[in-house]
């Protein structure tokens, strides 16, 4: 062949491309555009009462089978059932019940699955296991012994758990496992040092417990449980994942759920939320049963104007967070779910039913760079008046006609300027080599941003943005 290297390159690259996606691409694009448009539009004031009802982090209580909402009056909230096996707040592995390494005895009357540390925690099932316990014991005792000395375990982080078993004579035993490292089973008390009596197959025992629990639940009425759903925060006040719902979300069979969403912005904004009504919950349950795939759908993170997540609970009190992976997909890394058209439409309606969170103006308590982030967010929202108010001098950016800007901050330090106008302020901070660009222009500029204020009770303002020239990023 006489074609050039460039020709062969083009041809080879073209051959690599997989089949394009099927589906309504044009419709998806219009949905994306409407979301982006909402993001840019101004903020509509809402009544304080509605805002309070929608506030995140306020749990509401309902009884099983009732409508979510908590303000309907009527039936009083019932206390959760009291469990005879309580999960300890912190599992002391050296003080767990049972004999170290000894096989478990049959005849246990109750068992409880509890979190035991590790990288991830989880909400323990609220109901104890009372059926099939001999089967569970047989499964544990049948696990082969491991060979710690010759094993090379990956350094993966995982969730650790303990099953506490209670016997009719008042004695107790325990088995501990997890998904970290080799996933070994420890019977009874133990420390982190491996011994000759650890066993393989934590996953088998964990799965067995959940299967037995599911079988038991199929024969019983669920207890009355308090519904406590809130959107995720950076510092959640408790574990959210329930192992009973983790492996396959279709098993959750949610009875209550709240949709959480927040606009991606440089300023950290709170989640907004809306309860799903009974009809939508039924749709979601059916959708999860039909449309979940166990393969990894997305690597990395999709950039979507909205971050959307679903927090749900079932009749047994299992709670699960179904994180949105962006652009209409939900998933945990173990499974992925793209809601069907009906569910997508209902989610859109819920999101559109509420005005977007306002970009808060920086206060005196905020760090200097908060002024820059808020300014960029306000420019991108189209609120130029508020954006301009974050300048201590006449704004010089963005260029006339530019509606969208990008900004990536850098380190910031306090300086003592000798020249005006910065020297006229008592507190002057300099952010050097930040990145600034305007869209759709592609050029990225390095900028130095001077941020000032005169006293601690004033918010910081932008004084000067000095252009240091084109940035060399990725080119």
């Amino acid at each position, binding site marked *: 062949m006489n074609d050039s290297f460039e020709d062969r390159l083009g041809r080879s*690259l*073209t051959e690599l491309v997989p089949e394009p996606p099927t589906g309504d691409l044009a419709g998806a694009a219009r949905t994306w555009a409407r979301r982006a448009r909402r993001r840019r539009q101004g903020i509509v004031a809402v009544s304080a009462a509605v805002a309070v009802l929608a506030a995140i982090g306020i749990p509401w209580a309902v009884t099983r089978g009732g409508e979510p909402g908590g303000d309907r009056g009527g039936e009083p909230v019932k206390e959760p059932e009291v469990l005879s096996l309580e999960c300890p707040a912190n599992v002391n592995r050296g003080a767990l019940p049972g004999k170290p390494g000894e096989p478990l005895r049959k005849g246990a009357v109750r068992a409880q699955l509890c979190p035991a540390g590790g990288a991830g925690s989880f909400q323990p099932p609220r109901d104890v296991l009372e059926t099939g316990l001999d089967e569970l014991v047989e499964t544990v005792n049948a696990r082969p012994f491991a060979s710690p000395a010759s094993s090379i375990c990956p350094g993966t982080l995982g969730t650790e758990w303990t099953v506490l078993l209670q016997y009719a004579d008042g004695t107790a035993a325990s088995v501990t496992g997890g998904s970290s490292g080799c996933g070994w089973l420890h019977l009874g008390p133990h420390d982190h040092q491996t011994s000759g009596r650890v066993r393989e197959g934590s996953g088998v025992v964990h799965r067995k417990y959940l299967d037995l629990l599911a079988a038991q639940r199929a024969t019983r009425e669920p207890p009355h449980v308090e519904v406590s759903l809130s959107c995720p925060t950076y510092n959640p006040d408790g574990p959210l994942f329930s192992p009973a719902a983790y492996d396959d979300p279709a098993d959750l069979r949610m009875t209550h759920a709240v949709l959480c969403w927040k606009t991606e912005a440089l300023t950290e904004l709170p989640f907004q939320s809306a309860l799903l009504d009974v009809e939508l919950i039924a749709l979601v349950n059916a959708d999860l049963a039909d449309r979940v795939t166990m393969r990894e759908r997305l690597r990395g993170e999709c950039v979507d104007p909205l971050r959307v997540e679903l927090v749900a609970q079932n009749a047994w009190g299992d709670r699960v967070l179904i994180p949105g992976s962006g652009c209409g997909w939900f998933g945990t890394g173990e499974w992925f779910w793209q809601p069907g058209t009906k569910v997508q439409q209902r989610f859109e309606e819920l999101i559109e039913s509420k005005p977007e969170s306002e970009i808060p103006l920086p206060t005196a308590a905020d760090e200097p760079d908060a002024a820059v982030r808020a300014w960029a967010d306000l420019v991108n929202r189209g609120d130029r008046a508020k954006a301009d108010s974050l300048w201590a001098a006449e704004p010089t950016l963005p260029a006339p006609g530019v509606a969208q800007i990008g900004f990536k901050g850098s380190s910031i330090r306090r300086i003592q300027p000798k020249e005006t106008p910065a020297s006229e302020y008592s507190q002057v901070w300099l952010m050097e080599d930040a990145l600034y660009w305007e869209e759709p222009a592609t050029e990225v500029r390095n900028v130095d941003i001077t941020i000032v204020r005169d006293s601690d009770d004033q918010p910081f303002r932008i004084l000067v943005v000095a252009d240091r020239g084109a940035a060399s990023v990725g080119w």
Partner: protein
Amino acid sequence: MLDAMTETGKRDAGGFDEFVAARSGALWRSAWLLTGDIGKAEDLLQTALGKAWPHFGRVNGDGSFEAYVRRVMFTTYVAWWRRRWNVEVPAAAVPEQAGAAVDADLRRDLVTALAALPRGQRAVVVLRYVEDLTEAQTADVLGISVGTVKSQAARAIVALRSSPALAREEDA
């Protein structure tokens, strides 16, 4: 203004649908080669179409809407890199649907070589050698100078020449 543009977009919804049906395959090709990942490529294509859709009625008048979408796609691709939360993940898996004419190991090698290029070079390669744009057209889409296109293309070619997938064709 935005409302007006959106209304224009609505009026031309049929035309937009036809455009997507006709050209999404070509746009998909660029999106996948830029990202090396099916999920990210879908997101990039959807985002580019979503950003461009409100301007369909205005831009498509002179038949230049595809070029407009391409520009939006490539600038979005570059902008995603700048965002801290968009973690770059090297392409690891070659989709099974990829052309059967190329051996899987060699395909993986070429994907790896492409993924190893800096984003700007990757964008230049896709536009110049897959989409067959001229240097001037490539410069226009990326908002850079023709000289930069030349230099980035030259560096990319040097890097890609070491790919066994291409070397094998060269030997053939």
